[in-house]
């Protein structure tokens, strides 16, 4: 790994590192946010989708006559209409393609078949909720009423929803051209060495873990407003997204036009977490619809539609085995991971990201991983908060807990003696990931100190005196931030309103307008208040990678630093002119340019005015950067829980984290990211499940009535500490802070539950560990004799 060169321009850091209040907040706390549904266009119409009630059905015909007769209805459009108009597939490009992403392939190294994604299918519906037609009407209510009247001649087909069931060779097939539902089957690592290590091992521990399906539930339901200007032949789309630039290019392909014919506007986005990283069919449909009827078309999903048809998260079955020597040293790991991508492949990020991290924080010399993905008649999945990493962290951390228990080790000691050491950094793990930096044992030590691990026995006794079962959980984690490799920054020094940075990330709450301003302010030596960040309108933001995988600060700060260097050079030339010297004699520091022999200094605004005299663009630069090298945020986590054995009710009483995010730009924002990330991980462990009834193929949780959420009264307060081990891969030393809260959370909660039930016995509870399941587990343990009290799944 070649460390990034030192950059002179990163010197006096004043704003960076400070918990500055956010610039975004002024509009958001006064009701002046600009979310997609807040926009309306003159003469706009509304659309509603006709959705399949079946998990799998052929579409034999669509009769829109009754719907067309209803009040306010302007059009009913189908997949056949879309085909006839030449609309293309959405180019999701789901196979991660940076240099360092794990290379997933089909069987025998063949390309991955992804299943076409047209805006509306003409052949089959492949999941409950898949839209098969769209109704356009004057009002939203009229559109939804008319959608109910569209008669679709569905011919139900055999379906399969469960992950393992769908992977079976004889399972009902989703895609006729394929021999089965397996789209990815690739093996990584050194098989021969792994087998040898297992054969020689003193002990082997194995387990199969199921990390189920959840959904992101951003509080803003997805929405889109499309309009077509027949004169300019341009589409304008308002749609909250995870990357307006990407979606502009994708939707241009769908519509069959040049990218410049599409403008995507994504201002305030009400939460993403991965759900908005890929374009939704409704985005293309409102664009197409607006061209067809000559008026703007608007869509807003109900929450029930969001539950049903937001791109979903997780859904992995992981069989793992760990080989150890007689002293508890980890010798080798085997993993067989099966990811359920849903009805078509929109993103392989979860399987890919997870694949690179199966060995976790530990120095395991050899490993073999078989990574498979299967289609199923369910909503497609994609990246969701720490895509892939909570799953594999769960697999290894829980396996180590099992090894400790079965082989008689202390679970912290067993971890310590196997951690990757700082002296080994950069460390290439057994499946090829190169961990850039980190001090894993130091994280553990610090966590145990601030979390008062030693005092837990006192708290345990107190809880038991109140009739509660007390559980103490622990997990280490290392996760990865890769992301789209390219980013662009424009810096414009205005003559009258400070410095503007245009950048292609796409925040949905991460505070880029603030933290990026902190970075640029320090790079250029100006005040934080003088810098504004422009995002989200592709007519202004010409390139960029969006926001996902914790990429934003690392990519943005790097390209901003490079752009700032360029800008300083440009400014130096201008200053030399004014100061009547040569550029090499011009100094830059503390935000001003000068030269030896004079007290005169020139600030940025003055130079902008000078530049405006000679160049129409004024004082500005554009810089592109491409970075492929991943970074590996890491940390440790502990929690305490209390269970009421009579009811199975569980309370979290203590939750502590140490997170190495690399350099921390704004600790207030990073803590906020950790908090929210924790909630999503805990939610999966205790309350959240997008379960499908295997008999009917119908989702069981279609609203907040059934889908349990983290709420103010079931979440604890947190104790979080930031560790900063600068990454050598980028000039600011940044890793990422957005996903470390989630990564260890499912593992730490289930570790605590296992600890709480340990006096009664050992039993595996599949997440979410609801009070019902905990109570059932307790009944099973109490009924079982010691000999049989093992590994019964509830």
């Amino acid at each position: 790994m070649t460390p990034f060169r030192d950059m002179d321009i990163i010197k006096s850091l004043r704003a960076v590192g400070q918990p500055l209040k956010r610039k975004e907040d002024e509009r958001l706390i006064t009701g002046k946010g600009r979310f997609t549904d807040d926009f309306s266009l003159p003469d706009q119409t509304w659309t509603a989708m006709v959705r399949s009630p079946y998990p799998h059905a052929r579409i034999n015909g669509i009769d829109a006559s009754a719907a067309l007769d209803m009040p306010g209805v302007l059009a009913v459009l189908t997949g056949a209409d879309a085909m006839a108009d030449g609309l293309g597939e959405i180019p999701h490009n789901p196979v991660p393609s940076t240099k360092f992403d794990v290379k997933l392939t089909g069987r025998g190294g063949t390309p991955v078949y992804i299943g076409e994604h047209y805006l509306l299918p003409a052949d089959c519906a492949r999941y409950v909720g898949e839209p098969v037609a769209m109704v356009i009407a004057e009002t939203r209510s009229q559109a939804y009423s008319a959608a109910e009247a569209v008669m679709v001649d569905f011919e139900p087909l055999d379906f399969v929803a469960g992950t393992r069931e769908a992977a079976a060779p004889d399972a009902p097939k989703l895609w006729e051209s394929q021999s089965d539902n397996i789209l990815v089957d690739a093996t990584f690592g050194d098989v021969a060495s792994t087998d040898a290590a297992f054969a020689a091992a003193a002990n082997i521990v194995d387990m199969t873990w199921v990390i189920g399906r959840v959904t992101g539930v951003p509080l803003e339901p997805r929405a889109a407003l499309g309009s077509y200007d027949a004169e300019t032949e341009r589409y304008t789309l308002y749609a909250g997204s995870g990357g307006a630039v990407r979606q502009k290019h994708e939707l241009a392909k769908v519509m069959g036009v040049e990218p410049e014919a599409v403008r995507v506007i994504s201002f305030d986005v009400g939460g993403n977490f991965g759900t908005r990283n890929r374009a939704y069919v409704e985005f293309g449909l409102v664009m197409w619809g607006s061209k067809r009827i000559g008026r703007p078309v608007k869509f807003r999903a109900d929450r029930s539609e969001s539950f049903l048809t937001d791109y979903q998260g997780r859904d992995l079955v992981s069989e793992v085995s760990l080989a150890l020597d007689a002293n508890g040293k980890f010798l080798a790991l085997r993993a067989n991971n099966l990811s359920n991508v849903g009805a078509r492949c929109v993103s392989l990020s979860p399987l890919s990201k997870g694949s690179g991290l199966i060995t976790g924080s530990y120095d395991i010399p050899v490993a073999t991983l078989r990574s498979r993905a299967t289609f199923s008649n369910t909503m497609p999945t994609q990246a969701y908060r720490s895509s892939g990493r909570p799953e594999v962290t769960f697999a290894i951390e829980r396996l180590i807990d099992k090894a400790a228990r079965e082989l008689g080790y202390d679970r912290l000691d067993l971890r310590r003696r196997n951690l990757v050491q700082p002296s080994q950094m950069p460390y290439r793990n057994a499946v090829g990931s190169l961990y850039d930096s980190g001090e894993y044992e130091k994280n553990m030590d610090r966590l145990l100190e601030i979390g008062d691990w030693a005092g837990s026995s006192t708290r345990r006794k107190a809880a038991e005196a109140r009739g509660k079962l007390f559980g103490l959980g622990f997990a280490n984690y290392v996760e990865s931030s890769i992301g789209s490799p390219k980013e662009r920054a424009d810096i414009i020094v205005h003559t009258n309103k400070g410095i503007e940075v245009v950048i292609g990330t796409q925040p949905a709450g991460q505070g880029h307008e603030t933290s990026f301003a902190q970075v640029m302010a320090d790079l250029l030596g100006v005040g934080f208040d003088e810098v504004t960040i422009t995002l989200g309108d592709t007519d202004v933001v010409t390139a960029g990678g969006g926001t996902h995988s914790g990429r934003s600060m690392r990519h943005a700060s790097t390209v901003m630093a490079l752009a700032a260097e360029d800008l300083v050079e440009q400014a130096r030339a201008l200053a030399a002119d004014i100061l009547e010297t040569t550029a090499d004699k011009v100094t830059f520091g503390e935000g001003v340019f000068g030269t030896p022999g004079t007290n005169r200094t020139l600030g940025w605004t003055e130079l902008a005015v000078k530049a405006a005299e000679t160049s129409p663009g004024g004082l500005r630069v554009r810089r592109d950067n491409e970075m492929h090298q991943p970074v590996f945020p890491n940390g440790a986590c502990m929690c305490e829980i209390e269970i009421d054995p009579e009811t199975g009710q569980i309370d979290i009483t203590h939750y502590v984290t140490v997170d190495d995010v690399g350099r921390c730009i704004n600790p207030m924002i990073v803590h906020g990211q950790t908090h929210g990330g924790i909630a999503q991980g805990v939610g999966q462990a205790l309350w959240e499940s997008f379960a499908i009834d295997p008999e009917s193929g119908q989702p069981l949780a279609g609203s907040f009535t059934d889908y349990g959420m983290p709420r103010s009264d079931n979440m604890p307060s947190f104790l979080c500490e930031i560790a900063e081990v600068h990454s050598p891969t980028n000039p600011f030393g940044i890793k990422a802070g957005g996903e470390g809260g989630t990564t260890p959370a499912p593992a730490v909660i289930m570790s605590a539950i296992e600890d709480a039930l340990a006096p009664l016995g050992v039993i595996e509870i599949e997440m979410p560990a609801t009070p019902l399941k905990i109570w059932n587990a307790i009944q099973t343990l109490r009924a079982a004799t010691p000999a049989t009290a093992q590994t019964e799944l509830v």
Partner: protein
Amino acid sequence: MYPFIYRRPASVADAVRQFEAGDDSSYISGGHTLLPTLKARLAAPTDMIDLTALPELKGIEETDEGRILIRGGTVHADVAASALVREKIPVLAGLAGSIGDRHVRHRGTIGGSVANNDPAADYPSAVLALDGIVVTDRRRVAADDYFTGLYETCREPGEIVIGVEFPVPLSAGYAKFRNLASRYALAACFVARTTSGIRVAVTGAYNTGVTRTAAFEAALAGDFSAEALDALDIDPEDMLSDPAATGAYRANLVKILARRAVAHQGEVLIYK
């Protein structure tokens, strides 16, 4: 929601007339059960008769017989905060203060709750356990006769709940275990020592809707203690069963919650 005609009657009699004149009328009070139903397009009333402004439905007072009358349009927050209810039947005030969330309590009404008899609602268990009298626009019905099954009451179409009269008990206790998603009761037990005997009413659990547990009442009549229930069991076959809670789990909860309500008379215990 499907379109409807909104009507605002000036009196209860007016409301009943408007109801009967409509093709498929519905009353709206707090609306926190009705409006979600309509948004889901599960019903399409033609006429929406708004009871929220009717003065005859507002207020809490003590009757001549010493019962506490809570009129149907009284919101849960007002019952929870009422000095009279807190003095005379504090557990009833506490129950009202545990319904839904804060904003729901500012709109939801006892009349709506009792009229609807949702199987997981709180008020029906209080009305039944306290031996309340449901007062409608046309009659007075004892609680035992009013609740007739899952979502069912003896109300005729158009009949309005004017209020509920609660006799003051010797003591009462309420214990509720909430569904972790919907926050409705998976099971809840209201245990009251009334002037006419021990009454135990369970909501959220029985497949017959709000139901009295005769076996518990008999045991507690002999010995009012949690231990008196030890030997008794609830039949899981009598329970509702769904992905959140099996019949066996609910049966367990009913027993545990009844024990706790007995042991903590005067308190409202909410588990979530």
